[in-house]
């Protein structure tokens, strides 16, 4: 057979592409369930991390069921629309945040409870960093205004600069910050350069060299937490 002819070349390319596509889709379908599970476990680990509970991929599910006693969806008016734990877990912030009308958004809250620590509310946040999405979970004391813990993740921020937001050195100082001011007005947290440590409860310290990421984080907290304002006020 003449392997140099045009017909042969076209046929060869067409058959090869179809074959490869079939193999790839088969592999993707077979592995999908395991991958989804890995992502779910990671989300559970992140939720637990926001309340300073360390977990491994193996025990994350168990700890999650044990400590996350309730998961609810509220709307921006502060009314609870669902108490289904699985439904709350499945809420996709990407879809919710893209809804123009804040009143249409489903706002998930995970309620953590452990003896000796008490009840905390965990709120997921999602925003934009410099190179890609950044996300996180912020846990609040039951008064609804004091931050108990926070954890942030990033997809592709610059290592050593923006990506520092995923380190505990950056996350630990969030404990104790206030997202409402003394007059009870929602303020979120403002980014400051040059140190917000000690006695500045409404600000967080920006990452040196990671200004765009820090600003993105500031905007992420503002955008996501503000829609919870009414609910948090009513829970005081």
């Amino acid at each position, binding site marked *: 057979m003449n*392997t140099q002819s045009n017909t042969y070349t076209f046929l*060869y390319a067409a058959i090869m592409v179809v074959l*490869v596509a079939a193999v790839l889709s088969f592999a993707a379908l077979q*592995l999908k369930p395991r991958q989804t599970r890995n992502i779910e476990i*990671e989300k559970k680990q992140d939720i637990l991390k926001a309340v300073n509970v360390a977990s491994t991929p193996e025990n994350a599910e168990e700890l999650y069921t044990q400590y996350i006693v309730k998961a609810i969806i509220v709307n921006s008016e502060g009314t609870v629309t669902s108490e289904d734990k699985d439904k709350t877990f499945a809420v996709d912030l990407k879809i919710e945040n893209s809804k123009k009308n804040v009143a249409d958004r489903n706002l998930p809250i995970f309620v953590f409870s452990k003896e000796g620590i008490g009840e905390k509310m965990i709120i997921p946040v999602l925003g934009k960093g410099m190179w890609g999405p950044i996300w996180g979970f912020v846990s609040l004391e039951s008064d609804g205004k004091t931050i108990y813990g926070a954890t942030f993740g990033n997809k592709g921020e610059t290592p050593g600069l923006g990506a520092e937001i995923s380190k505990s050195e950056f996350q630990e100082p969030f404990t104790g910050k206030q997202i409402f001011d003394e007059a009870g007005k929602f303020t979120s947290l403002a980014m400051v350069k040059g140190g917000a440590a000690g006695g500045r409860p409404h600000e967080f310290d920006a990452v040196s060299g990671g200004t765009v990421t820090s600003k993105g984080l500031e905007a992420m907290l503002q955008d996501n937490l503000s829609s919870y304002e009414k609910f948090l006020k009513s829970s005081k």
Partner: protein
Amino acid sequence: MSDKEPLFSAKNRKLLKNPLGSDNPITVQVLGICSALAVTAKLEPAVVMSLSVMAVLALANVIISLIRNTIPSRIRIIVQLVIVAALVIVVDQILKAFAYEVSKQLSVFVGLIITNCIIMGRLEAFALGNKPWPAFLDGIGNAAGYGWILIVIAFFRELLGSGTLYGFKVIPQAFYDMGYQNNGLMILPPMALITVGIIIWVQRSRNKSLIESN
């Protein structure tokens, strides 16, 4: 070629052995440097990367070698790319399913195996003109040659840069108490280049035949 060649004839053994030393893809051919810089800050990603490259290279070599007589020469690079890309996607999916933590660390670098010059180089230079078994050995050999360099670099970078090996602390706390500090420079990519340079230097001073005449 009717006479049966033994599986591990002298010629075939050479295919495995040469890339480890005198024909090493990184230190002699200076291919695949990009990923050698990117994934060697820690041992674990370096090991996983080496294994992934080995799987992709060996399989791609065998597949290309099996169909080498049917490939229309005008689109041979496209055919090679499609096969390599498909294998890389499969490896990426498998990592995501079975080694999620590692796949997060390697993230884009697994995808970049597609553009790893070693793979295209071996397909063009070897698999297109040889039988499947030697092509398989050539793939394993070159990937191993690539892998051991990666692992040596990662060993020094992790040890000096983070004071750990494979995630375990190896430098005792007493050292830190006495004022020892991890060298943050080792984490940065340029130090990988310098480490490669040192390995090349050592290799050439021991094996004079590698030194160019000019």
